[in-house]
């Protein structure tokens, strides 16, 4: 069985100060069973053998649950396969002879560290602003000590599946981080433990999001369409509701 031959146009940038440029590579004999990252591994192994600098990209679990990987593939964050992280995207979705454009997340608050790696500390600072509940730490309480409605538990859990990959920002024409911030606000705001700080949380997190330099939400829905976890647009309505109430 022969593999696919692909042409890759990859963003190469030596460091934050480098201007960066698209560089074309050819990868041969790519198995359709490879993941997108494994295909890049093949390219990198060859680049190392040739004495070249391998393409830097973020990755960790390669199971689609950690949120580390992410690149804009042919103009779509995580590629065109829906509800899929880059690591779970398989080469069977591409054809022999395809040209694939690979770029990092593009947003001013996500500066490029190297090649396809961006610094997503801005997300951490949004969480630090209010994405938590203040409770006395100790041993875990018994399950069902505090009753939670099934519908609320489900919706909170759906929002909590956000892995913070940043695809929402990358896909948004405005470079907005609303879906990420809203997912966290929804997750905590739906549960009884999150109620005492619900208003201050929404206010602090939205203000931090704006301070980081993310754009504003214009309800385009591009974020939820590329989100590997399918976080719904509804979370943004909830964020707006909580924020308006807090103000």
């Amino acid at each position, binding site marked *: 069985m022969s593999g696919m031959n692909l042409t890759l146009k990859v963003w190469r940038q030596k460091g934050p100060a480098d201007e*960066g440029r698209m560089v074309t590579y050819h990868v041969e004999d790519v198995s359709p069973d490879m993941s997108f990252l494994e295909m890049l591994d093949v390219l990198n192994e060859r680049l190392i053998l040739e004495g070249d600098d391998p393409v830097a990209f973020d990755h960790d679990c390669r199971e689609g649950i950690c949120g580390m990987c992410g690149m804009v593939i*042919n*103009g779509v964050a995580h590629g065109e396969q829906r509800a899929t992280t880059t690591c779970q995207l398989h080469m069977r979705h591409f054809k022999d002879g395809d040209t694939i454009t690979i770029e990092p997340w593009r947003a001013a608050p996500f500066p490029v560290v190297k090649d396809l790696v961006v610094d997503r500390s801005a997300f951490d600072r949004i969480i630090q602003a209010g994405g938590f509940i203040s409770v006395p730490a100790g041993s875990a309480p018994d399950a069902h000590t505090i009753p939670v409605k099934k519908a609320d538990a489900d919706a909170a859990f759906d929002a909590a599946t956000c892995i913070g990959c940043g695809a929402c920002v990358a896909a948004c*024409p405005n470079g907005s981080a609303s879906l990420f911030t809203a997912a966290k606000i929804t997750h905590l705001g739906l549960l009884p433990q999150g109620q005492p700080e619900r208003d201050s949380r929404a206010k602090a997190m939205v203000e931090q999001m704006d301070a980081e330099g993310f*754009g*504003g939400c214009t309800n385009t829905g591009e974020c939820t369409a590329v989100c590997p976890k399918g976080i719904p647009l*509804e979370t943004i309505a*909830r964020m707006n509701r*909580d924020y308006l109430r807090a103000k």
Partner: protein
Amino acid sequence: MAVTGAVMVLFLILHVVGNLKVFSGAESFNEYAHWLRHVGEPAVPGRTVLTLIEVVLLVSVVLHMWAAISLTRRARKARPVKYAARRKSQASGYATHTMRYGGVVIVLFLIWHLLDLTFATVNPAGAAGLPYDRMVQGFAPERWPVTLFYTLALVMVGLHLRHGLWSAFQTLGLASGKAYRPLKLAAAGLSAVLVLAFLSVPFAILIGVVK
């Protein structure tokens, strides 16, 4: 965007109801125009209500544009380096992507529209003409480019409302899970009804139903 947009949509509904008076004849239409200028008299001076509406609308238009411009500027600042690959829209929503240039088309149209039928400087009947005559002469068949421009602009208004109507609910935090489908359907429905109702007048004049 949401609040000022809502003000303008409410005005559009009043506006189109007034327009449809054209179908009940010249007298009815001119009377309505006269009434608009004199409603509330003598308790309040003439044009009080009309002036009030004009001021609220002007403020809404200015604030709506200010919000749109600042959102656009924030968006540009948030993405200083553009994508090399053409960014493919993953969300289905053609109307959403017409909002910015659509808004510009609507503003240009608004300027022409005011010059045409409010100040009558570009209207064949002139400022001295009765409202009904201005309308009929303005959309006379030989002035078909004007009608064409109105049609294009109104389609833009329709697309703008298609996204704007449900979007306002989202921005104000009034949308939730089950409400999205009916909200989007209602947005599409109201946009279509408004556009068709507005277009019915120039087209009725074009084909000679109203003369």
